Each structure stands twice: as structure tokens, then as C-alpha cells.
């Protein structure tokens, strides 16, 4: 496992909101191609970790390095969220954040706009270059939608999709940015067991197909145990355990965090 080069290294990252230390000295290394789970009880700071890694929330202290397109590790703490996304970090959100009044297809096209070579003037004058690029983007977006079985609904407004498909569309949109690292924030939240199973298969599939490294937040332990190679457990902003699913399942600190002390 450690043979594979790292794509992300977070060293002692912390963030303080007012008097609250939401994430405290969090460490994480992701190697190429890994599927790592980040779990923990409600309010443990999982989503905050995502926001720190993606630059949505600035760090209070610590360092983050990510692999650039050239293959070397670069410091990303202090960079803007859009710059980090362009390094190849795609993400989804716990409380779905689609562009609700744009179509399914347009949601993906927005995620591809940073790859645009033509200028705004090309768009206004409708040059040939512009049309060719638009067509190429649309073709790629439809291809991606097909992976998620959403190509038939490309002209639907995102807000009119059923809940499960909105979750899928968020993943498709994250993939449209062309990431090498994918951060999924509770992708199965609100899904029934059957939908969850299907989603997990889909995640494994896209991981292979797009050679992704995936960090996954999940609330439901049993689910994460099934597909993750490695799990980190967060409670009160601190890592209380990390290891293989088997190690985590047996770890007394984890059991305590999830079930409380009395049951021990």
C-alpha cells in the first residue's frame, strides 16, 4: 500500500471557530488509488475536514500538500478553493448543492468551464472555435451522464430530479472537473439499502474507470466497512483511530465514541 505515491498529505491541520476547535491536529495521507473512509459521530468535524482540504474554509494551522498535474507535491493550504479544485480535487456536498435551476447537462458543463480555451469574446461573437469547444464539452458531459444513467434526463432541471439521482448528479458533476482525487460527503445519505448498494457499486466502478483516489465520509459504519481499504475515525475534531476496517471494528475508542461508555 505504501508503495503507491501520495496524492494528499495533511499534517496537523486545525481550525478554530470562535472558541471551538472544530478540527484539531488532523493527519491524513492518501496514496494513489486508495479508497479511504472518514467516519465519526454527528458533529465530529468530518465535513469541516472536507472544507479544509478543499479550501472552502481556511486553516488555522497545519499544512496540506497535494499532488499537482506535474506529479510533485505542492502546498495547498492558503490556496483558494477554485485553485485547489483545478489541481484535480472534485467533491460532493452533504446537503446537496446542485445548480438547481440549471439543467442536468448544464450542471456538468459548469464544472468543465475551467478547462475552456476560448474567450468570452468568442462566446459573444459565436466563433467557430467557440462552437467546436461547446460541442466537445457537451459530448464529454453526455458520456459522463451515461455512466450514471442520467443521459436520458440531460434536459431536466436539476431540481426536478428525484433525490437519489440528485446525489448521483453531484458525483457526475464532480467527475466533470477532471479530478484525480474525489471527496464524497455522505453520498448515500437518505438512500434506502438497495439504492446504497447500487451507489457503492457505482463508486467502485468510477474509481476503476477514472483511476481515482477517493475519500469518503459516511455516517453508516457497516457501509464503509464494506468498501473502504482504510478508515479514519474522527470524534470532537480529533482522530481517535485509523486502520483497516477490521481494526476499526475492534477498536474500543471507536466503540465508545459510537455507543457510549456504559455499553462497554
Amino acid at each position, binding site marked *: 500500500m505504501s508503495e503507491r505515491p501520495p496524492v494528499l498529505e495533511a499534517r496537523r491541520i486545525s481550525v478554530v471557530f470562535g472558541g471551538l476547535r472544530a478540527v484539531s491536529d488532523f493527519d491524513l495521507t492518501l496514496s494513489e488509488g486508495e479508497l479511504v473512509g472518514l467516519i465519526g459521530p454527528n458533529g465530529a468535524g468530518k465535513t469541516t475536514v472536507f472544507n479544509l482540504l478543499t479550501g472552502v474554509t481556511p486553516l488555522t494551522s497545519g499544512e496540506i500538500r497535494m499532488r499537482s498535474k506535474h506529479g510533485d507535491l505542492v502546498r495547498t493550504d492558503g490556496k483558494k*478553493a477554485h485553485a485547489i*479544485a483545478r489541481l484535480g480535487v472534485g467533491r460532493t456536498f452533504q446537503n446537496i*448543492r446542485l445548480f438547481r435551476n440549471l439543467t442536468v447537462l448544464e450542471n456538468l458543463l459548469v*464544472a468543465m468551464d475551467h478547462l475552456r480555451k476560448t474567450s*468570452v469574446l468568442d462566446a459573444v461573437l459565436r466563433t467557430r472555435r467557440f462552437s467546436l469547444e*461547446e460541442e466537445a464539452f457537451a459530448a464529454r458531459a453526455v458520456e459522463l451522464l451515461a455512466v450514471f444513467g442520467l443521459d436520458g434526463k440531460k434536459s431536466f432541471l436539476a431540481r426536478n430530479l428525484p433525490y437519489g439521482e440528485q446525489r448521483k448528479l453531484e458525483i457526475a458533476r464532480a467527475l466533470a472537473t477532471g479530478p484525480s482525487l474525489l471527496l464524497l460527503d455522505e453520498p448515500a445519505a437518505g438512500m434506502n439499502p438497495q439504492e446504497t448498494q447500487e451507489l457503492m457499486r457505482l463508486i467502485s466502478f468510477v474509481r476503476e474507470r477514472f483511476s481515482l483516489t477517493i475519500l469518503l465520509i459516511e455516517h453508516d459504519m457497516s457501509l464503509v466497512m464494506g468498501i473502504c481499504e482504510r478508515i479514519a475515525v474522527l470524534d470532537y475534531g480529533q482522530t481517535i483511530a485509523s486502520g483497516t476496517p477490521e481494526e476499526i471494528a475492534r477498536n474500543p475508542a471507536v466503540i465508545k465514541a459510537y455507543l457510549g461508555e456504559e455499553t462497554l
Partner: protein
Amino acid sequence: MKKKGVDFLLLLAAGAAVFLLIAGLAWIGVIGEFYLQLISTAGIYIIVSLSLNLITGFTGQLALGHAGFMSIGAYTAAIFVMRLGVPLLPSVLLGGAMSALFGYLIGFPTLRLRGDYLAITTLGFGEIIRVVLNNLEGITGGSAGLKSIPGFSDTGDVMLDAIIKFAWIFVFFAVTVAVISNLVRSSPGRTIVSVREDEIASTSMGNDVARYKMLSFTVSALFAGIGGGLYSALFNYLNPSNFNFLYSVNFVVIAVLGGLGSITGTVLGGLIFTFAQEWLRVLKDFRLVVFGLLLILLMLFWQKGIMGSKELSITRILRRILGLGGKKE
């Protein structure tokens, strides 16, 4: 021939037809000079409201100082024409450029902030511009105003002059519609709309949200300034007090009335607004009361405006009428 080419010709033909219809009706006397002037006024209102709709309807940032941008364009154009003898067309364009420059300068610090800061800043900006124009007496004529600004033409024939005014404004109106609709229906335009929909999501998809807000705001200021330049030539008189806060609110009303995020809605909204204000004049002192009441009723029962965020596709309608077929959405 490609679909794109056909659509372009259809739009060109439709535009020419509308122009010839109105100009023709005016020429044979069905539309009087007064109403033609009113249509021209509506055209300017529509240009400025479209520019406002770009930043407020499409980008989701409330701006309350478009009268300020309009007055920058108006005074710049008028000064170039009167004091420097520059022809009208470049003067109007320079007015737009000056306004865009101001848009860029005030957008730079404020658009990085989230929330309603832009609304407050633009409101303050509009008022500052008005006060400055009032006090630069040597250049702007101060509160006495700038009089006898040359118009679009001076043929001596009132009707012909009115038609020429209308032609100018119609061409600028068509260009504004074309530029803004091409912009919003393109890759950068969709990103502008995504900023309205969800800033965090858009930035997380690799889009520099601040840059797109700047783009939208600068283009918006450009067209507001062009609208101002046309205004100076249409009315031949400028006074800073015309461009007060309430004047800015008119454009917000038109954009909301037509539908935020709808170009065709803004066109309809501008026409209805201009004509309603005129027709309600018979009510004398009650005009503004009734007008306000109508707006309240509209917002209560028709919150999304006439068009919501939908568009009327002229090419699709024409294709159907002409039986050209074409791709259905």
C-alpha cells in the same frame, strides 16, 4: 445551411421586420411622434434593465445604482459630443467604456464580499456620482443641467427625426440583446448563472467566482453606460437629479416585473413599465399610488414576473410558422 446560420438570418429578418413595421406605421401616421418617442424611451429603459438583469437576475447580485452608471455614460457621451466635437457613435461607445471602467473599479473591492454588500455599495456609488456631477459645474453644468445636447439628427422634419432616433436606439437594443443572450447561453455565461445558484459549489468546481462576478458587473456597467449615452442624445438635456436612487429602482422594477433571469421578460417589462407610467398620467396625483399598488399586487400574485426565468424563443416560433422544423428541446 447550418442551423446556426439559419437562426441568425431568422433573427436578423425578425428584427428588421419589427423595425420596419414600427417605422412604417410612424411614417404613414398611425403611430404619432409622441408614441414613437415613448417607444424609444422604452428602448433605453430596456437596454439599462437588461444590463441590470445580467448582474441581478443572472448573477444573483442585487445592484441599486444603475442610474449612476447610466449617468456616467450619459455625461461622458454628451461631453465628448459637445466639448470635443466627437461624433455621436464613438461618444456613446466611450460613455459605455467609461461606465465599464467605473464598474470594474467599484466591483473589484466589493464583489469579493458575499451577501448584500453590493446592494449597499452600488446604492452609495449611485448617490456619490450624482453629487459629484452636481458639483462639477465647469464640466457638467451642475444642478442647472447640461442643455442643448445635439441629438441623433436634425433634418427639420419632426417625424423623420423621431424615426432616426428610434432607428439608433433599436440597433443598440438589438446589439444589447444579442450580446447578453449570447453571453448567458455560453460556457462562461452558465458559470455566471452557477454563481447565482450556489457560490460554494461553483468555486468547488474550479471556477474563480470573483472573476465571473467582475465580468458580469463590468459588462452590466458597459451597457448601462451605453443606455445613458443614448439617453443624452434622445432628450438633449441632462440633469444630475434625474439620475437619483428612485431612477435606479425603476430598472430593478422592470427587471423584476419581466422576470429576473429572463431577457424576453425584461423587454416586455420595459415596454409595459414605460407605457403604464404614461397611461397612468390621467390619474394625475394618484398616478404613483396606483402604480405602486399595481406593483404590490404583482409581487403578491406573480412573484416571478411575467416570464419567470423562461425565454420566448423567437427562432423557434419562426421555425414553426415557416415550417422549417428544427430541433425540439
